[in-house]
């Protein structure tokens, strides 16, 4: 066991406090775990120290990301505060920079960035700041300085046709920028003799880096959860208890209390049946921004459910189940739907009333209490008859009806939105334009809305 140096314990507790302020749930038991863990790894090894602490207090990938950001910041500030306290300063920090000219420096930095050596980058960041300072271009604002230095050094991440140097790796340049920022901060603290106030993490920094492909993956993940929820929810209590199968094992077990005579029968729990899902998706211009998202939801749903029929509508409704089953590539699907959907008649404005009438004719017979209808749309009828009574009949036939609206709840029923006409008939209506909302939808229906839950 290695003992933690005195003075570290309060710092760790303060660090955990800071984690809590950023929304990580760090319990006392976790802090105790952290201490226990840190006694088994040498605290002088920064990588091990950090990993051991992370393993005990950051319990998800998002938490881990926040942890990384806070860890750097907290211990940097702690070290600087200590240095201020003891009046330690580095007089000779920029030694040697006079001998380097800007071109040499630029070359050295490019190389360090390409090789990705942290120590080297840090030293060069200091040199760059010194060289920059001598030219008298420092603005005193750290963010501005970082960008100016970066521009002076010509570190671009986009390949440009006129530049003879090749583009650098974005992550590596970001790392170099972090060093620059850190060193500038250090200089500032030393000059002013005090720490700048600490600010909470920006939401932007905290979020995991995403790309469109990842968004699609997130949709897929939410839909996988949705599948599990829909499959197990609300069906258990439907219908009478007929055709129940006796569970021999449990009956025998229960019979022990009566001396081996099976007085009470135990039944096997009923397996939930596979849900049938009908998804209706508005693809008109008023929901253009949302319809890409909706189509990707639909796309993901098709991956997860076998008994799924999907429809798109504007003025008329059209079944696109087949398109989704045949095509895999999302872009091709989007194209084919817009080309072959045949859902816009003349005006290109959504006509919900007509859509219900058509849907009712097309499908009403297939609907039964086991089916779930999900409508993705903004309920903007462009002033046409909403035919809420037809929708009510559809909702009545189906076991459950959910409405996902791509507009914030605030905008519902403003203008030509007739959400109020439909809302009483659905099991639940949700606002939904991000994967987070989608997950929320999944959670809410998983949380057991007043559906046949006893």
């Amino acid at each position: 066991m290695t003992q933690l140096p005195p003075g570290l314990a309060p710092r760790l507790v303060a660090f955990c406090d800071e984690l809590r302020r950023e929304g990580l749930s760090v319990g006392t038991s976790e802090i105790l775990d952290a201490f226990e863990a840190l006694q088994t790894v040498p605290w002088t090894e920064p990588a091990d120290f950090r990993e051991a602490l992370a393993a005990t207090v950051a319990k998800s990938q998002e938490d881990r990301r926040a942890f990384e950001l806070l860890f750097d910041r907290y211990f940097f500030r702690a070290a600087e505060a200590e240095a201020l306290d003891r009046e330690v300063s580095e007089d000779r920090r920029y030694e040697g920079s006079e001998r380097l000219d800007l071109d040499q420096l630029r070359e050295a930095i490019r190389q360090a960035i390409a090789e990705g050596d942290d120590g080297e980058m840090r030293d060069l960041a200091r040199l760059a700041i010194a060289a920059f300072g001598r030219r008298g271009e420092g603005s005193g604002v750290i963010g501005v300085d970082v960008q100016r230095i970066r521009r002076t050094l010509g570190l671009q991440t986009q390949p440009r046709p006129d530049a003879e140097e090749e583009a650098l790796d974005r992550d590596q340049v970001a790392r170099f920028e972090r060093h620059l920022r850190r060193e500038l901060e250090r200089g500032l603290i030393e000059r002013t003799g005090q720490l700048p106030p600490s600010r909470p993490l920006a939401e932007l920094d905290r979020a995991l880096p995403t790309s469109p492909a990842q968004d699609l993956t997130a949709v897929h993940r939410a839909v996988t959860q949705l599948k599990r929820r829909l499959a197990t929810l609300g069906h258990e209590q439907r219908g009478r208890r007929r055709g129940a199968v006796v569970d021999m094992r449990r009956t025998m077990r229960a019979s022990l209390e009566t001396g081996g005579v099976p007085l009470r029968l135990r039944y096997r729990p009923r397996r939930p049946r596979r849900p049938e899902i009908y998804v209706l998706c508005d693809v008109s211009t008023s929901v253009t921004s949302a319809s890409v998202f909706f189509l990707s939801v639909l796309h993901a749903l098709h991956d997860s459910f076998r008994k799924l029929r999907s429809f798109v509508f504007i003025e008329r409704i059209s079944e696109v189940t087949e398109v989704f089953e045949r095509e895999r590539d999302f872009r091709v699907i989007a194209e084919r739907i817009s080309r072959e959907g045949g859902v816009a008649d003349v005006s290109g404005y959504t006509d919900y009333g007509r859509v219900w009438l058509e849907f009712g004719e097309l499908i009403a017979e297939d609907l039964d209490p086991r089916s779930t209808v999900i409508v993705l749309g903004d309920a903007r009828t462009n002033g046409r008859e909403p035919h809420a009574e037809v929708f009510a009949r559809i909702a009545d036939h189906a076991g459950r009806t959910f409405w996902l609206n791509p507009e914030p709840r605030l905008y519902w029923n403003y203008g030509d939105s007739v959400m109020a006409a439909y809302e009483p008939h659905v099991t639940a209506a949700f606002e939904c334009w991000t994967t987070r909302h989608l997950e929320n939808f999944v959670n809410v229906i998983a949380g057991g809305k007043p559906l046949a839950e006893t």
Partner: protein
Amino acid sequence: MAKHYRLACIRRGTAAPYHRGMEASSQDRGMPQSVADVKESLEGVGYLADEPAALVAYLALKLGKPVLVEGPAGVGKTELAKAISRATSRALIRLQCYEGLDEAKALYEWNYRKQLLRIQAESTGEGDGDPTWDHIFNEEYLLTRPLLAAIAAPDPVVLLIDEIDKTDQEFEAMLLEVLSDFQISIPELGVIEARTQPVVVLTSNNSRELTEALKRRCLYLWLDYPGVDREIEIVRLHAPELDEALARRLVEVVHMVRQLDLKKPPSIAESIDWARALLLLGADDIDSSVFERTMSIIVKHRTDIDLVADRVGVKLGGPQLGEAAG
């Protein structure tokens, strides 16, 4: 009471707090001294752990805390548990989770057939004349399931609870007693305590958010797909005859495939399988024709195959261009 050899540490009545690490002396053998030790011994059994994985494995052994491993499918979460079991020469007890898993299948069950026979024997006067209630609720009539087996094992074991996210929250709640105190309460019998400290590894594919209570009791490890260089090492460890340049090419292609939005991205095990297949075929480069013939090893869905052939296959170039390797 000769039958009590299996579950010797049953304590009847109220549960008193149990102090972990009591048996430290008996467990010190085989206890690693440093993170590097763990890394080395894992490597010795064919598992190349990265820094965080080795550290968490070390902490798990040292502190006796369960480890929750999350990450995409096929990054070696389950394999990590197996490797720990091999490296520490502990037996591996595995509990595969699925929807509807209940305590009768995870913890213990009463052997009702045997109990019934006993009762009947009593009633017909063939028994030993001691028809007390206690009698049919003792260890003789208990069927151990993985969790109880791990707790009651005389030698330290590695308990793998695989895909915990597949079960429901109620099951998680049931696990809490096992994970924090390493004990199981059986209403008819009392509390069964662990005699040795099992290493517990829980894996999750992140398909559902686990409860705070469970996470709180675990060390957390996020495993991701390894970087190119480490995956090359892994592939070369399992297919040592593979040419270095070819291994690099293979891993780069696999990484390219993982970038696409697939139903099932290729796992590390599949990279290894692919490497072995290439060895068997005697291929010395991955060009589009080799790729076409063998890609079913790394891509398993028909729709995925189309997508991969479309996006990756064309990038590889024809056979005549494939002179880069070698």
